[in-house]
């Protein structure tokens, strides 16, 4: 029997995975935990396994794994945590800076999107104040195991010594490596970081909720002016200068499929005229879409770019270019909104 613990990596998903394994082993015997996000690696692990029972831990599954999970109706648990926890956990584990960690989390969310939208799957809410036994019981229900007051002691007693009096929050601190450090990082986030992460929650987490996630936005704080000191594009950009790239970033990921990007600009004092080009560029060194046009003297306008994401693992960048030397003018990106137009599954 195969089960899956899916979700962007977090202390909570690690704890849930451990509890799921304890439950499955209680009822099925030995259960092998396999963490592999590439189908060839997963196949190799399955060939090597010493048991018929497996628990997959998936955070960035490739398309083949995602399709297999959905097609075969693999019983799965999905744990969704806020970007602050997910990003801090990535920082703690990999030494990334905050923005790199946020980018990594967008990769996890985008890769998990096809599984998360599976009708057979619902997120498992986890409350830190909840007793550990109660969470264990709910995980059992999710996976279809009859966890009860009778057998819960046998399930938890072996590896969770104080399980009777322990809350989920305490269990995280005691039993999950890196949880303390993650929560400490979370508590030290600046107001600006928290605002960015809040925007990411509102934008990306609905992708993991059934029926949501058709439209998201990229925070301007994660995109940059292409000149030292590479500030965020949260203020108007002086166009004065030669033809050049004006902005780049955010190197976020999107679920596979067709998307439309809507970029809204505000422009002032462009009396001598100019042309602007906007493109969507991937880490696979490919321009997915581009548009160019003459700029007005001033005002607010929007441009739309249709493009197809062929791999959620590709980082995406929205670049803007001024196409000829500028004597004047100030341009500001007001918003970057992305709407999904087609669901591949």
């Amino acid at each position, binding site marked *: 029997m195969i089960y899956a613990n899916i979700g962007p990596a977090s202390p909570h998903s690690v704890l849930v995975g451990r509890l799921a394994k304890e439950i499955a082993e209680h009822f099925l015997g030995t259960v092998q935990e396999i963490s592999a996000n590439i189908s060839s690696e997963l196949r190799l692990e399955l060939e090597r396994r010493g048991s018929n029972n497996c628990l997959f831990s998936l955070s960035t599954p490739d398309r083949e794994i995602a399709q297999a999970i959905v097609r075969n109706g693999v019983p799965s648990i999905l744990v969704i945590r806020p970007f602050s926890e997910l990003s801090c956990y990535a920082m703690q584990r990999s030494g990334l800076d905050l923005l790199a960690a946020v980018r990594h989390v967008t990769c996890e969310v985008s890769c998990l999107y096809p599984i998360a939208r599976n009708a057979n799957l619902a997120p498992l809410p986890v409350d830190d104040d909840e007793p550990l036994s109660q969470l264990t019981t709910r995980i059992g229900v999710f996976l279809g195991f009859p966890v009860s007051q009778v057998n819960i002691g046998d399930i938890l007693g072996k590896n969770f010594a104080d399980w009777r009096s322990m809350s989920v929050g305490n269990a995280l601190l005691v039993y999950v490596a890196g949880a303390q450090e993650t929560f400490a990082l979370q508590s030290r986030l600046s107001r600006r970081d928290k605002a960015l992460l809040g925007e990411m929650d509102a934008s990306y987490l609905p992708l993991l909720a059934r029926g949501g996630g058709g439209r998201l936005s990229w925070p301007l704080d994660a995109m940059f002016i292409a000149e030292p000191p590479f500030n965020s594009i949260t203020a108007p950009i002086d166009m*004065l*200068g*030669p*033809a*050049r790239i004006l902005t780049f970033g955010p190197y976020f990921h999107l679920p596979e499929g067709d998307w439309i990007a809507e970029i809204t600009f505000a422009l002032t004092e462009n*009396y*001598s*005229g100019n042309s602007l080009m906007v493109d969507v560029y991937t880490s696979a060194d490919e321009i997915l879409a581009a548009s160019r046009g003459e700029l007005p003297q001033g005002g607010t306008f929007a441009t739309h770019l249709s493009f197809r994401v062929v791999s959620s693992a590709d980082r995406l960048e929205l670049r803007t270019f001024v196409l*000829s*030397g*500028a*004597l*004047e003018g100030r341009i500001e990106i007001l918003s970057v909104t992305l709407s999904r137009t087609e669901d591949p599954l």
Partner: protein
Amino acid sequence: MRYVIDNEATSDGKIALRNIVKEYHTPSGAKTVLNNVSFDVSAGEKIAVLGRNGAGKSTLVKLIGGVEKPTSGTIHRGMTMSWPVAFGGGFEATMTGLDNIRFIARIYNRPIQETIERVDDFAELGQHLLMPVKAYSSGMRARLAFALTLAIDFDCFLIDEVISVGDQRFQRKSHDALFVKRRDCAMILVSHDISMVKNYCSKALILKNGRGRVFDDLDFAIDVYSSL
């Protein structure tokens, strides 16, 4: 009309254009060629005027040279200003070269004989100076104009692209006379020649679609101009 030409009202060693607008009336309506252009040239300063074709450079030269008047704005000329160097369009074609020299020397209040000698010495036109200018080749006409420009001793030279006059020896002589012997004079150099601009100018005015902006950083200005 709301223009003021403050022509040598005070010799303060400065040329100042303020909010210059130049419109031409065309069958399809008014066309604004220069739109609110302002800049200064101080004594000895050399400014390049850069821009693509149609940006308004020639119109600006005409306004600075006093050939045309702006639709609005002010032009202050606090130093003597040449006509475009080597521009021979101002000659009276039926008069001889010599008579044209006399005529212009009188206009600019310069000693006539000395001016004739200086022009004759530089232009190397010899007996051709006794012939009507209409009989001159374009090269001879340009040499006469160039020599006359140098003989008048202006404070500021207006150079509109063409200074390659005559054969190679004459070109070298012209270049030397303008950029070496008169290195302390102010210059307004309209040119597409980046190396010339880099060699002789300290700042640049870039024109684009009638708008103008002065750059004190010449390298930055050339970067902007190169991608116009």
